[in-house]
């Protein structure tokens, strides 16, 4: 099994697409990303792996629209229409397929308005045509998929002056249009999901590192986004907590059926979690080498002992050793 460069751009069930993306920071001569193509499909768990400082986080910044590419297109698509939004503008047409169905109903796109808020514009839905490509219904200019991502940063970035529940509630508050009681209900549900039931009234500083990361994950879920961008969320935790947390994350992913793009520099973590691993070898990033993980879900820690898993792990480690030379 050898890695193959990603060429196949399939916008059919895409969650995120890079199309010929080139990027350098303004005023900087160093190009970080050059003519890069890759696609993440709906419902996938994809790890982005590479040595520290190779520009993995820059890919996230582009997906989050914190930076714009110098050339090329970055697109992000919402999957099945988001239930949180449905509750707001629940007109009759909310065809909600099963959440995990990657070929599901119309994918919504959210456009950042001048004021900076995300809002669904009238008539701006993607419709799947028979041919299987997305097409914009109304005569909008551009046609760039611009769905919000649920970004979870490396540090938990919980606001210390807010209780855990108030932190988790933040994305709902910012979006507005939801009753206090409903927000609290959703937050309580999310806290229960991440195993923090009863901790809502505590301050972040009263929680352990692992608990803070789970609170941060719950907050990420509150964005309602279908594509989750997790930037080395466990790198600051101790080894045993990491083991627990990655099993926990896998459970959450299997349950929620979101698309996850996961940055890590831990080869074992990537093998354990992902459908596919995209490896960054060189800087600037021109291509991502793709490895399919030959393990089925649900996975347990013992799956890592399988010969295929060990072989893949070794192969990845060798790749980075050679790249480092």
């Amino acid at each position, binding site marked *: 099994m050898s890695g193959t460069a990603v060429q196949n751009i399939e916008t059919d069930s895409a969650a995120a697409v890079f199309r010929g993306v080139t990027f350098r920071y303004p005023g900087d001569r160093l190009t970080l990303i050059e003519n890069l193509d890759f696609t993440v499909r709906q419902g996938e768990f994809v790890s982005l792996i590479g040595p520290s400082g190779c520009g993995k986080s820059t890919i996230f910044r582009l997906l989050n629209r914190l930076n714009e590419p110098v050339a090329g297109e970055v697109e992000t698509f919402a999957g099945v229409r988001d239930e949180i939004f449905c509750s707001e503008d629940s007109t009759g047409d909310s065809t909600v397929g099963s959440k995990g169905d990657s070929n599901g109903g119309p994918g919504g796109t959210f456009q*950042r308005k001048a*004021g900076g*808020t995300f809002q669904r514009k009238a008539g701006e839905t993607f419709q799947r045509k028979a041919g299987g490509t997305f097409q914009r219904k109304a005569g909008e200019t551009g046609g760039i998929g611009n769905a919000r*991502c649920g970004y979870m940063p490396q540090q938990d970035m919980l*606001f210390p002056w807010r209780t855990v529940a108030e932190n988790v509630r933040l994305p709902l508050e*910012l*979006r507005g249009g939801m009753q206090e009681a409903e927000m609290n209900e959703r937050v309580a549900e999310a806290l229960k999901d991440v195993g923090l039931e009863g901790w809502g009234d505590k301050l972040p500083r009263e929680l352990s590192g692992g608990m803070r990361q789970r609170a941060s994950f719950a907050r990420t879920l509150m*964005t309602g986004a279908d594509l989750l961008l997790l930037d080395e969320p466990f790198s600051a935790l101790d080894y045993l907590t990491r083991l627990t947390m990655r099993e926990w994350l896998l459970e959450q992913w299997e349950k929620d059926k979101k698309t996850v793009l996961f940055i890590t520099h831990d080869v074992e973590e990537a093998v354990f979690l992902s459908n596919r691993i995209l490896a960054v070898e060189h800087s600037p990033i021109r291509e991502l080498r793709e490895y399919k993980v030959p393990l089925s879900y649900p996975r347990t820690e013992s799956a890592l002992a399988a010969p295929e898993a060990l072989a893949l792990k070794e192969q990845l480690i060798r790749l980075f050793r050679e790249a480092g030379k």
Partner: protein
Amino acid sequence: MSRTEKLQKNKKRDAGMTRRKDSSLPAALLVCVFLFAWQAAAMKMSAAYILPSPVRVVVRLWELRGPLFGAHLPATMQVVAIGLVISIFLGLGLAILMDFSPVARQALYPLIIASQTIPTTALAPLFVLWFGYSIWSRVLVTVLFTFFPVVVTVYDGFRAIPVEMKELMDTYGATPAQVFLKLKIPAVLPYFFSALKMAVPLSVIGAAIGEWLGAQNGLGYFSRRMMTQLDGAGVFAPILLLSIAAELLVVIVGLLERHFLFWRGAE
């Protein structure tokens, strides 16, 4: 309802922690030693117009309680209050403006620093010429003393906000107003209270100096008048009162800080 309950619970716990940790006994002992030495030296010197003993100062404070508490303390506190309010608004306004606009920062920051090189006390007689013996000359001196720590500390507070927190809010689609209300204000609050703790004593000093240089009432003015009468204890009495007033204000700020910054816990 739960918010206030939480807050009180936190406060109680924090108060418990501070009581255990931070004992004021050593400081009190040191003050006692100092006062005894002062008393002994004053009694040995026996020249009350040069060095009145602490006991004499307290006695004089009691004797002069009528004019001091009735007229001069309120006059000074009025200047302190007005000066402090203007300084806080001016300081916050400038800090927010500089945070908001890099151009404003480039234009204002050097000027604000330069304002501190002005020998305010030397200029104060000029203020009297401008404003007469009205309270505005004293308020101006107070503001010149006080606004600086507010601007600089609060502005530093804005700069200390992790950019990652701001970017996280951007990914949630926050508007600039939401970033300001939900991130910047709470994040800057600790810096604001630090600024207040510096500003309050400075405003009292500023008011007293303003009065000393040109006024017809106030504790600074009264102290100076006692000087001309060679009443040593009479010079110290209003100053003692001024210190107590400043100390009380600082304590109030400290209590407010504990209330609003409950999330920081005991330090």
